[in-house]
């Protein structure tokens, strides 16, 4: 679709409709201030005339001076008013859009974040919003200058001098509009690319910093600098492509305005000689043409700004228009409590894959059960949890909680029920206390120390310099892997959820700690449902149901005892792990 210049106003109509009073006031003040600014030259001329003709009296002088001072103050006040009001609109828009963006991010699930990279989303939330804000401030100013003022001057020219001459000298104007439109389209396309390149560069820096340890350890600094340098080259190229069009605006307008002058004077002379207008008219006409220069430049500026804003707005709207992959069903049900959880012939394929990650999974969980999920790396354990958390849409089959299909359950309620400890220990750059309070906002220190005991973290916390107030840094960098996992466990425990999901979340704690935590869990979780995925079978031995996954399929299921009897994969692994663990102990 060819972008039209003014479509940005259409796309932002919600904003301008909301703030129309502000904009009307600003524009009126702007017009008023501009009218006022016509007076001072007249005042000066008036005084000089009086001096010249010796007609100046003290009274006139005082009147002029007092009048001028008042005028200066009024002009300053009105100018301040329009300036502040108009440009405030720009930053209000920026703030509003940014709020919309973050609110949108918060509704998005993994498929969205796999499609859009963080650095790019950051760029859209900062760099692109700047270009959009420009439209709501400077864009409106140039719009007023190039429309209202141009019309005013043209009207004066037409009515007081000659419409014929006015129209003739404005002949280049439609040509200008055409050319500007062409430039505008080019700016739109090229600016979009430049902003994209900026987003990619942002992503590049972010990845380099997040992966800095890997880069350093593998001595890849040079290659990384090289890679970044390619990105900045790209940004440079794309910006220069914009510049090439950008640099055309001013000369084109200069030339076309000049042609207006040429026509005005040439044709004006002809009219004078043909005794259609007077010499005085031509001189005034020349002055008015001079006044038209800025509005014509403003027209160019306007198109330039609007198209940049447009390009950036499209990038932002691409995000805002992204419909959440998982959202609340219109007739979502609120159900009292979680009873049974049933998976019925559930199959799932990730959006970017053609391989079934889950293949015809069926099982049933009764309230209060503990379910162990085991299997090789990549067998589908995490995927199963992701579906239960409704991180991905479009699976086949049925997942039902208390006999209600999961899609029908209010998303907030579902998430309220579930406590989740993911494989990656995601912590926030806050204190340990605040991280645990994520699970329960008003948790007291007594409650916190209780769950820390459950998570076997009390001893560690005593060793940390600031105890609960220890800042964990971004992603929990200042904690060890085991500590991070236990904070994440405590965070889920304090929520005391109906359904607790532990996704291989004790991998970095030692066997004794794990055993202790599981012991605590068994006491705490009586009557509540718990899912545990683990590579260490010791973590799931006590489960009421153990499901063995392989390549997305359930290959075995049952209790620990029945699986041992079955003599399959589970037994094999169990023996292997027992062997490696126990051979000496039982010597």
């Amino acid at each position, binding site marked *: 679709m060819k972008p039209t210049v003014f479509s940005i106003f259409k796309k932002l109509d919600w904003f301008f409709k909301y703030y129309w009073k502000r904009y009307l006031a600003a524009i009126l003040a702007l017009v008023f201030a501009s009218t006022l600014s016509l007076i*001072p030259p007249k005042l000066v001329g008036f*005084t*000089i005339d009086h*001096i010249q003709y010796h007609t100046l009296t003290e009274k006139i002088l005082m009147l002029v001076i007092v009048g*001028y*001072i008042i*005028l*200066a*103050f009024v002009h300053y006040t009105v100018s301040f008013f329009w*300036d502040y009001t108009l440009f405030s609109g720009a930053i209000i828009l920026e703030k509003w859009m*940014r709020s919309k963006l973050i*609110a949108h991010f*918060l509704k998005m699930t*993994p498929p969205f*974040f796999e499609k859009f*990279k*963080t650095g790019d989303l950051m*760029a859209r939330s900062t760099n692109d919003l700047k270009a959009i804000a420009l439209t709501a401030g400077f864009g409106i100013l140039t719009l007023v200058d190039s429309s209202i003022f141009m019309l005013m001057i043209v009207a004066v020219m037409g009515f007081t001098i000659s419409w014929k001459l006015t129209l003739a000298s404005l002949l280049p104007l439609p040509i200008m509009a055409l050319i500007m439109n062409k430039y505008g389209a080019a700016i739109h396309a090229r600016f979009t690319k430049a902003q994209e390149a*900026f987003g990619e560069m942002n992503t590049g*820096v972010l990845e*380099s*910093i997040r992966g800095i*340890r*890997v880069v*350093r350890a593998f*001595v890849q600094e040079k*290659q*990384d*600098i090289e890679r970044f340098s390619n990105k900045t080259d790209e940004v440079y190229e794309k*910006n220069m492509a914009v*510049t090439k069009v950008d*640099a055309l605006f001013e000369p084109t307008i*200069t030339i076309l305005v000049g042609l207006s*002058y*040429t026509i005005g*004077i040439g044709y004006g002379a002809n009219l004078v*000689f043909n*005794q259609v207008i007077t010499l005085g008219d031509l001189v005034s006409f020349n002055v008015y043409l*001079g006044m038209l220069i800025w509005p014509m430049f403003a027209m160019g500026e306007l198109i330039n700004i609007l198209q940049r804003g447009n390009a950036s707005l499209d990038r932002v709207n691409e995000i805002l228009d992204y419909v959440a992959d998982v959202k609340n069903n219109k007739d979502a049900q609120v159900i009292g409590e979680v009873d049974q959880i049933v998976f019925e012939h559930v199959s799932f394929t990730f959006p970017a894959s*053609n391989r079934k990650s889950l293949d015809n999974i069926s099982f049933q969980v009764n309230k209060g059960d503990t379910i162990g999920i085991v299997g*090789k*790396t990549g067998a589908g354990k*995490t995927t199963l949890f992701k579906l239960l958390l409704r991180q991905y849409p479009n699976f086949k089959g049925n997942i039902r909680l208390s006999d209600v299909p999961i899609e029908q359950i209010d998303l907030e309620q579902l998430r309220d029920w579930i406590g989740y400890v*993911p494989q990656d220990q*995601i912590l926030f*750059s806050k204190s340990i206390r605040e991280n645990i309070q994520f699970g329960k906002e008003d948790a007291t220190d007594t409650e916190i120390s209780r769950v820390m005991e459950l998570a076997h973290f009390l001893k560690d916390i005593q060793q940390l310099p600031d105890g609960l107030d220890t800042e964990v840094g971004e*992603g929990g960098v200042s904690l*060890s*892997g085991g*500590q991070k996992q236990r904070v994440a466990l405590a965070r889920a425990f304090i929520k005391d959820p109906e359904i607790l999901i532990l996704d291989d979340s004790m*991998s*970095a704690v030692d*066997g004794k700690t794990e*055993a*202790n935590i599981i012991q605590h869990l068994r006491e705490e979780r009586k009557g509540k449902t718990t899912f545990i995925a683990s590579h260490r079978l010791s973590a799931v031995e*006590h489960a009421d149901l153990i499901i063995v996954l392989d390549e997305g399929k359930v290959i075995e299921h049952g209790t620990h005892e029945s699986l041992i009897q079955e003599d399959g994969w589970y037994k094999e*692994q169990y023996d292997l792990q027992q062997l*490696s*663990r126990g051979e000496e*102990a039982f010597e």
Partner: protein
Amino acid sequence: MKKATTEKRLFQYALKFKKGIIIGIICLMIATGLELAGPLIAKKIIDDHIVGIEGAWNEVEEQIDGNTVTFQDKYYKRTDRQISEDKVLGKATLLQVEKNYYLINQEVPLTGKRAVTGNQVTIQTPDGPIKANGQKLRLTDLAQFIKPEKRPIFLLLGLYVLLLFVAGLFQFFQTYMLQKSSNQIVKKMRNDVFSHIQRLPIQYFVNRPAGTIVARVTNDTEAIRDLYERVLSIVITSFIYMFGVYIAMFFLDAKLAALCLLAIPLIYIWMRLYKIFGSKFNQVIRSTNSKINGNINESIQGMPIIQAFRREKKTKEDFETLNTRHFTYQRKLLKLNALTSHNLVTFFRNITFVVFIWHFGSFSLEPGSVISIGLLYAFVDYLTRLFGPINNIVNQLPLLEQARVAGSRVFELMDEEIEDVNHTQIPRYNGHISFQNVSFAYDDEYVLHNISFTVQSGETVAFVGHTGSGKSSLMNLLFRFYDPQKGKVYIDNHNIKDWSRQQVRSHMGIVLQDPFLFSGTILSNVTMNDERISREQAIKALKAVGANRFIEKLPNGYDAEVTEGGTTFSLGERQLISFARALAFDPAILVLDEATANIDTESESLIQEALKVLKKGRTTLVIAHRLSTIRDANTIFVLERGKIKESGDHHELLGQKGIYSEMYQMQQQGARVSLT
């Protein structure tokens, strides 16, 4: 050593690309000059050739050149076109009254209100009306009088159009060159900052959210672009223009000009005052922008948790605090700008004119005063012209200040102390490691106390101990992510401090517990795009760790896309890929930091097998909580609170009945507890 000011350093960057900037500014000046010529030509056309036909004419004897006009068998010529060969027969005046032209056969004043009744033209003058007989010219007659003007009008218009195109050309190059230079400067700055980042100690990244660092590299440098693109050239040309106006004023009236020099300290004070407030607001805006970036990054990384724990509202509130602060300070800055900038310049100009009127007005009221009206007009003209560039300069202050603050943030990062870099290849070492009396603290508190141990090349050793016992710190020292305060670390009896960090690491590989994948493909994550690692080597490494089992099922196999952070792969899969990465680089020393925690037993045993095969000439250091995974190690070191408490192989340690044996028993118990 005191660092140069931000202004100076920004200027130094400009000097690196001064050629483009100077060409740009020269183009700007030429273009501006040519543009000014335009109205002058228009004025000449109107004054000389259109308005000019009205005025004094002579009746001459004969037609000797193209400037002579024939009218009713008489010859006329404009007095200003008179040449010595002309014989003047009489005076005449051509006047326009309303729209018609009249030829009057006598000299009459050209100013004053005109009226016509029949053939009589009346001109009002201060000394009373003058009446004269005139002859109304028909269009064809008038054409005769205009004829000599047509050619010069055409020529001048042609010249005007020509100048326009030339001016346009220079304008193009002005914008192009300035933007090109500014883009080059920003690119250079970004590359410089990024290179600097690659040399900052790891500690720098521990304390700062990644997103905020990103903002300095990208957003802050972007905020500087305007400085070189616009601000610099406008300020320079404005000062040149002001200089020109001052010169002209000195010729006109030295005293007056000297008085107007006051404008310069005024601008200076203005800039200083603006800087005080503007810089405060800008600092908050830039740092908040940086925090917004950091916040977005962290929110996105933590989104699964935010949503699972339904903390969207709180997260949004935290974000809005930043967003609102950003907005509030932008608005403060806006208020400052609206109160100052062009509005205040206009106010000052108006006040200057008030003083002007007052001064000359009162002077003229004094008896016997004589004032030159021409001087007054010139004064008004120059004052107006002087305020033009002042306005331009002041309008650039907000951008200048923004660039200054952004620049200071960029330079602040560039001033962070960096590590020495030396990429010169060293021969592959054997991997004999020795720590001698090493003590180390991250800040004040020592986490390693007087540690000494030796690892023979080719051995596998393990470090066990509770969290915080110092296992990871040992690895940090070995990799020279940090250097110890006391003691020395040797590889092949070579103090590693004598090598550069890059040299030390060049034959080491590490698999981190928290494996990091870069966006790209699976293969690019193994090779790290290092040309020393071939595709085949990478695939071989992936197969060796058993990653081929899941990779070969992916649509694009080894070239399958890895999205940001590798989130589409499970943690175990990511660990396998990063394991392959370490193997592909064929390191002399391999460090495994809880590297197999999330990998299933089958894959793990596969890896163990692969390691055995690849072990030759390789020293392997393992950190593990699971004692079962390290039983085969040649030596196991038991760490507690930064000290080595026990060492020996599995059997020896069990025999010692110390910490290790206790830990081992407890893990066994643990396993059995869960069975009951």
